[in-house]
């Protein structure tokens, strides 16, 4: 009907309301409306009741639970919302509302908002805390990988890992890395690795893609599986710049799958160099220790005077001194004789008679003088000899004994002992000390020096 109702048509309230309902529902069966969310209530039924308002007006809205589930982001008071839906009239109350069939946040994308909301929530729970993050194993042997079996990620990981260390084993738990089922599969795969428990570290990721493609790695399910993993997890979602929720929760974040392999696998060559280096240093150090010891032993050996050599030296010195003494005596007599001869010549050169007389009278003098000189010479010789005897005495083996050395000989053969190997425990040895002698029984023999401390 166009124009107003015919004049003087009388409606009942219900009739009018029913008419309004028909009009409104047909005219506004599929509209888009934008407003600010306020008075949001979500009772246990899960249906969301709120008001969309702007500066001048407000509109009642309801968003049923089924729609809410597909939203990915959470409704919040104050949020600017763009909705698509239909307007209905609730006749008993006489009010109208919009039933929202789709909603998205104004400005920011729905996904982006969902990301922000989840990130804030998990951060508040402490799941991103640095203190939670575990160190990666030093020398992993089995690496568990959660990714697609057909993508580039697994090939990159295997290539980089085996180039650095062909001894590691890569274990793939294949999953979808995008689409509806991906988040669930990824979470389950991480759990399975934890159940099997034989991997040293896990790598979870995929190659690059759009925000939609990467979405599974922003899902709460995946985040919680990573947080719960007892095995350290490296996230490897191929997105150089942006971070996914998985990146925040993981123990270490790698910008790409290849980078993950580099972080996880140590270059074997470096380890090899290190081990070989330690081996070399060990050998060198021990050689130095042995050289040192050798030098000390030699020094001690030289320091200890060998008694036999000492006696030989002493005897040689005695012979030497004896010879010199004889020589000195011979020279002395020679001097005397030539002195006497010189005198005699003198005497003879003067007047023969006088000389004879002088000589006759001189002779007793000469004799006396000769005798005196010989006495002196002998005295000197004697003193010299005494000195030599004194020196010899100091060098004699007996004096050596006085310095603390002793002579050990086998008993009863009395052969001098120079080596510990010449006797055995139980043998008897005779020991000559400076004062006195000992008869001893051998307890223990050692071919090397016995240390001062008394230990053998």
């Amino acid at each position, binding site marked *: 009907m166009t124009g107003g109702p015919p004049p003087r048509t009388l409606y009942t309230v219900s009739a009018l309301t029913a008419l309004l309902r028909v009009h409104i529902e047909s005219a506004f069966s599929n509209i888009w409306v934008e407003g600010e969310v306020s008075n949001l209530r979500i009772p246990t039924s899960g249906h969301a009741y709120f008001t969309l308002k702007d500066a001048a007006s407000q509109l009642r809205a309801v968003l049923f639970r089924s729609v809410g589930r597909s939203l990915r982001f959470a409704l919040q008071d104050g949020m600017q919302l763009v909705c698509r839906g239909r307007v209905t009239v609730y006749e008993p109350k006489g009010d109208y509302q919009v039933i929202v069939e789709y909603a998205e946040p104004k400005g920011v994308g729905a996904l982006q908002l969902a990301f922000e909301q989840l990130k804030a929530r998990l951060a508040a729970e402490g799941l991103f805390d640095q203190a939670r993050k575990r160190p990666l*194993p*030093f*020398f*992993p*042997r*089995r690496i568990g990988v959660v990714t*697609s*079996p*057909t*993508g*580039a*990620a*697994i*090939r*990159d990981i*295997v290539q980089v890992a*085996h180039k650095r260390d*062909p*001894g*590691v*084993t*890569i*274990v*793939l*738990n*294949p999953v*979808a*890395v*995008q*689409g509806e089922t991906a988040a669930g599969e990824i979470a389950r*795969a991480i759990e*399975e690795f934890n159940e*099997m428990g*034989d991997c*040293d570290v896990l790598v979870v990721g*995929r*190659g*690059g*893609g759009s925000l939609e*493609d990467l979405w599974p790695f922003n899902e709460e399910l995946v985040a919680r599986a990573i947080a719960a993993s007892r095995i350290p997890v490296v996230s490897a979602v*191929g997105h150089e710049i942006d971070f996914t929720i998985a990146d925040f929760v993981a123990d270490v974040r790698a910008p*790409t*799958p*290849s980078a993950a392999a580099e972080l996880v696998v140590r270059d*074997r060559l470096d*380890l*090899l160099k*290190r*081990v*070989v280096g*330690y*081996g070399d*240093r*060990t050998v060198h*150090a*021990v050689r*130095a*220790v042995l050289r*040192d*010891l050798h030098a000390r032993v030699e020094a001690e050996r030289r320091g200890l005077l060998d008694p036999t050599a000492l006696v030989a030296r002493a005897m040689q010195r005695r012979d030497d001194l004896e010879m010199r003494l004889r020589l000195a005596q011979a020279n002395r007599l020679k001097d005397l004789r030539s002195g006497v001869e010189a005198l005699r010549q003198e005497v003879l050169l003067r007047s023969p008679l006088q000389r004879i007389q002088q000589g006759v009278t001189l002779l007793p003098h000469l004799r006396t003088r000769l005798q005196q000189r010989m006495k002196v010479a002998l005295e000197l010789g004697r003193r010299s000899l005494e000195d030599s005897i004194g020196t010899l005495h100091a060098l004699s083996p007996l004096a050596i004994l006085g310095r603390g050395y002793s002579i050990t000989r086998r008993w009863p053969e009395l052969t001098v002992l120079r080596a510990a190997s010449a006797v055995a425990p139980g043998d008897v040895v005779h020991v000559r000390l400076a004062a006195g002698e000992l008869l001893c029984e051998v307890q223990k023999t050692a071919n090397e020096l016995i240390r001062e401390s008394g230990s053998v």
Partner: protein
Amino acid sequence: MATVKFEEALARLEAIVAELERGELPLEDSMRIFEEGMKLSKVCLKMLEEAERKVEILIKDKDGKKRTRTFDIEEHAEAGQDNGDVED
């Protein structure tokens, strides 16, 4: 797991080198840790010798449990379409 043993062995070897280089040990102890060091060095080298390049895949058996099988990457790459992975 081998990972724990290697790290420990390397650390012990490092400590032995430090002790020997300090040179303060009596001869018998020096010899003893020298031998230990040589043994450890052999063990570490052995662990670094492995070069089998193993790759395994977890496949669900009939009973639903997952088991490891050897995995040939090239085979799988040709077999199916990529899941939409974009090459980095």
